[in-house]
């Protein structure tokens, strides 16, 4: 169906080909997964199928790509539109019209299908993807998972024989990802659609693949094989494979179910091993840097106060007016430690919708908290409230003793730092060096402190690199360094692993662990259950703006089937979370 014959692609002004010696064939009706570390040219290979590479992107393609017998050399993308449906990484960039139904019809209109055919297919697709209730909705009002389904639906209606997807689930919560994958599975099984898909989160997709095309490193020729064959030597692999390799299972299991059947002996070996203590390392008080203005406030205050000013010394004296609330407080306020984050009965409204409802959360120094929950549950809003981007409608937020939305940004960066979902938003300058200089100035830190952090997090980045030329993981590290320049005791990360491969993720885990050990409190909003299991001491699950679970990681994720990491599922009822834990225990 799709045939690559010794293809190499060189972009203009690039010294080396983005991919070379790509030579494989995807037979009709197969679901083929394209895997590999970041930057090996997965998107280039996908683009070559739809003809966007090189017709749209520019560059030189050597060799030949044929799709359903049509050579992409002689057919422009628009002339392949009836056989290839393409969905890119960002569904929002894909939409041409503004309502669900029009979007589904758009491709068919371009192809000139008869109105009654279009009508029938739109109805069928609405049912197939479970979108019937949303048919009249403006696309902008849909959740991430719904948007992704609309994007897939919009390329399905012209009945393409090939579907090309670039990271269809990486922005989705576990349940929405299952939804999308179930739809793909159905297309392949019921309708014989050929699917070629790239995805970083292998733990979600590898069990659905018929075959895997592995691009091991930039410029290397791809390896093709069944998932079990390729996973045996692939540099990227999901936790289930990691556990399989560790335990030496053969054949290598790819699904939790297969792994469970092989895991009896491993469970026995692990039965008498103690679980690792998954608690924050105690932090010496001196290690916690607190801003000078706040350190003079020994008492935790229960009422919102005006922004702290360096001259106010009221907190040093006992408050003359004792509020009734303080009288009823059972535990005395902790002595001198200042809470990096304290959220009390916080409610936030956004355009008539209650985004958060009476959320209470306290984060102590050195603790890592993972915020989880489906798309739109209020995770980003909570992070926004902690950095003062969102004003509370009720309740209070304290960050290192300050009220974030009333604190001047310059003071606030020394108490809390947020790495947003799109790290690029934080970067303005043309070069890494300029970015670091600006960060030092913003944070009032000594010259070179940001650059030192960058060198630590990102060895080998030269000063004159443009932030845009960095890979996703490198950009995240640069944004992290910029935020850390002010040494905030509280670090927030919104969806940090989106678009990161396993190696970049492992580096991030190392960096964040070291920061937590130094006494930074870390809160991360994430859909990545494996990351949460690896990193978090505590998991807080939000649903519809309310906290529905809050407890130690092991307890919360073990109790929830959709938030449990693969290792937990395999070794249940034992409570192991990650491959690392198992490896340590077996030692």
């Amino acid at each position, binding site marked *: 169906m799709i045939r690559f014959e010794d293809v190499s692609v060189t972009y203009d002004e690039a010294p080396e080909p983005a991919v070379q010696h790509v030579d494989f064939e995807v037979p009709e009706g197969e679901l083929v997964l394209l895997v590999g570390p970041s930057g090996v040219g997965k998107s280039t290979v996908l683009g070559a199928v739809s*003809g*966007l590479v090189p017709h*749209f992107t520019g560059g030189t393609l050597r060799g030949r790509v044929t799709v359903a017998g049509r050579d992409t050399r002689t057919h422009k*993308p*628009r*002339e392949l*539109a*009836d056989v290839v449906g*393409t969905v*890119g990484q960002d569904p929002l*960039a894909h939409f*041409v*019209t*503004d309502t669900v139904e*029009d979007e589904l*019809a*758009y*491709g068919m209109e*371009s*192809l*000139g299908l008869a*109105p009654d055919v*279009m009508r*029938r297919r*739109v109805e*069928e697709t609405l*049912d*197939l993807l*479970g979108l019937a*209730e949303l048919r*009249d909705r*403006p696309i902008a*009002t849909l959740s991430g998972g719904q948007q992704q389904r609309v994007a897939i639906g919009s390329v399905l209606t*012209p*009945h393409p024989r090939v579907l090309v997807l670039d990271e269809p689930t990486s922005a989705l919560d576990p349940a929405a990802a*299952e939804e999308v994958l*179930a*739809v793909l*599975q*159905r297309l392949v*099984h*019921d*309708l014989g659609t050929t699917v070629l898909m790239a995805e970083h989160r292998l733990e979600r997709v590898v*069990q659905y693949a*018929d075959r895997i095309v592995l691009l091991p490193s930039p410029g290397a020729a791809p390896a093709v094989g069944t*998932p079990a064959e390729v996973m045996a030597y692939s540099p990227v692999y999901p936790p289930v494979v990691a556990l399989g390799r560790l335990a030496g299972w053969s054949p290598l299991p790819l699904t939790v179910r*297969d792994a469970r059947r092989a895991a009896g002996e491993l469970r026995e070996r692990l039965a008498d091993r103690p679980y690792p203590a998954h608690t924050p390392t105690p932090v010496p008080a001196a290690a916690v840097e607190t801003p000078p203005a706040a350190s003079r406030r020994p008492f935790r205050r229960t009422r919102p106060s005006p922004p702290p000013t360096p001259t106010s010394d009221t907190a040093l004296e006992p408050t003359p007016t004792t509020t009734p609330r303080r009288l009823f407080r059972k535990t005395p306020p902790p002595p001198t430690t200042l809470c990096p984050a304290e959220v009390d009965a916080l409610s936030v409204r956004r355009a008539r919708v209650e985004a958060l409802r009476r959320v209470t959360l306290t984060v102590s120094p050195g603790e890592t908290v993972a915020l989880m929950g489906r798309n739109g549950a209020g995770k980003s809003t909570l992070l926004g409230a902690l*950095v003062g*981007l969102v004003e509370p409608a009720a309740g209070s937020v304290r960050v290192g003793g300050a009220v974030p939305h009333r604190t*001047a*940004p*310059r003071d*606030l*960066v020394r108490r809390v730092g947020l790495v*947003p979902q799109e790290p690029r*938003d934080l970067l*303005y300058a043309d070069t890494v060096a300029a970015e670091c200089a*600006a*960060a030092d100035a*913003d944070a009032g830190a000594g010259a070179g402190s940001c650059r030192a952090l960058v060198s630590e997090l990102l060895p080998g980045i030269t000063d004159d690199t443009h932030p845009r030329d960095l890979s996703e993981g490198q950009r995240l590290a640069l944004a992290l360094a910029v935020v850390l320049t002010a040494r905030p005791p509280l670090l927030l990360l919104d969806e940090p692993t989106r678009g990161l491969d396993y190696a970049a993720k492992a580096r991030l885990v190392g960096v964040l662990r070291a920061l937590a050990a130094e006494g930074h409190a870390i809160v991360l909003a994430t859909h990545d259950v494996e990351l949460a299991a690896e990193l978090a001491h505590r998991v807080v699950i939000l649903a519809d703006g309310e906290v529905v679970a809050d407890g130690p990681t092991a307890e919360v994720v073990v109790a929830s089937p959709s938030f449990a990491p693969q290792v937990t599922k395999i070794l249940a009822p034992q409570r192991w979370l990650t491959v690392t834990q198992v490896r340590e225990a077996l030692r």
Partner: protein
Amino acid sequence: MHPSVAGMTERPAGWAVPWPRARGGWSRSSPRPYRFRGAGAPSTVHPGAWWVWSLGLGTAATRTTNPLLLGLLIGVAGYVVATHRTDAPWARSYSAFVKLGLAVLVIRLVFAVVLGSPIPGSRVLLTLPELPLPDWAQGVRVGGRVTVEGLVFALYDGLRLAALLICVGAANALANPARLLKSLPGALYEIGVAVVVALTFAPNLIADVQRLRAARRLRGRPDRGVRGLLQVGLPVLEGALERSVALAAAMEARGYGRTAEVPAAVRRTTAALTLGGLLGVCAGTYGLLTAAGGTYGLPVLLAGLAAALGGLWLGGRRSLRTRYRPDVWGVRAWLVAGSGVVVAGLLILASVSSGGSAALHPGVVPLVSPTLPLWPAAAVLLGLLPAFVAPSPPSPPSPPAGKPSEPVEPVAVKEPS
């Protein structure tokens, strides 16, 4: 729900074969179980009808300065918007238009106070210190007497403009602008898409600016002020450009711009007709506007227009596109559009008739209190017709009654491979 949904999961085979559903009594001749058969998007009137209606009201607003009538017009437009507005993002523009109208009114009043008014008035409200201006600025006055008459005149005038703006806002709120562009002829379609994309560009740009200004706060820089806005300018434009390129790629991959093969003769005729037609329109307009060309102006203009339209029609044959559920101009659309046209027509009639003119333009000098003229007021009330004939939008949060609330989420079928 459709009767055959239950059978969907065990549909024997595929996408390419005729649909079992289509065979099961869904042939084209039998009525389909849709709510609005053959209609455009359910529960909508043709967007053109809303525009005709609102422009009719707007035209009516330009014919009068009577504040009571203008208030009535604004009320009529507001009532219809309140009953028929959906929850869609474009429907929220109505309040923006209302605010714009108010701003226009206020600016008009401020100008009348500061710059004086040409209306000769006798009742002086207050006297502002007058700015002495050089001789060459004769006729311009800054400060000076502020008369009640001048203010009232400015108020009437501003109110008329505000009413016009609010009518346009009503059209924006009631009809999706993108749907109106869908009704363009085939040859203009690609321009229409460009306009739609441009229309979505602005809201996206605003969202980007807000996001990046928020990000400035994260860097510890002030997130307000002009400097903050300027510094995010470049990243915002970069982002907008990137998004446009991504959208262009998506459109290209989805078949945008596919053309049909047309004979060379047709292509040449199209080009000749379009070019000739446009030239004719230009020449005709020139003729009409100059004193000498009174005789040939109109015929040339009409001929040019006909040729250009012919070129458009022929050009449409190159486009393969078909329309999905095009909006139909039905009885309701006629009623909605008709009510607007009737309101405009009746007020124009009233304004030219000798008796009505005084009532439509209440005197300012001498100042008299405006009265509500009976017949024009009744005519304006005809504009309420759409509130009763147009179907009201479904209330978004709760599903329409009578529809069983079946779970529509696909069942997660996971099969180990």
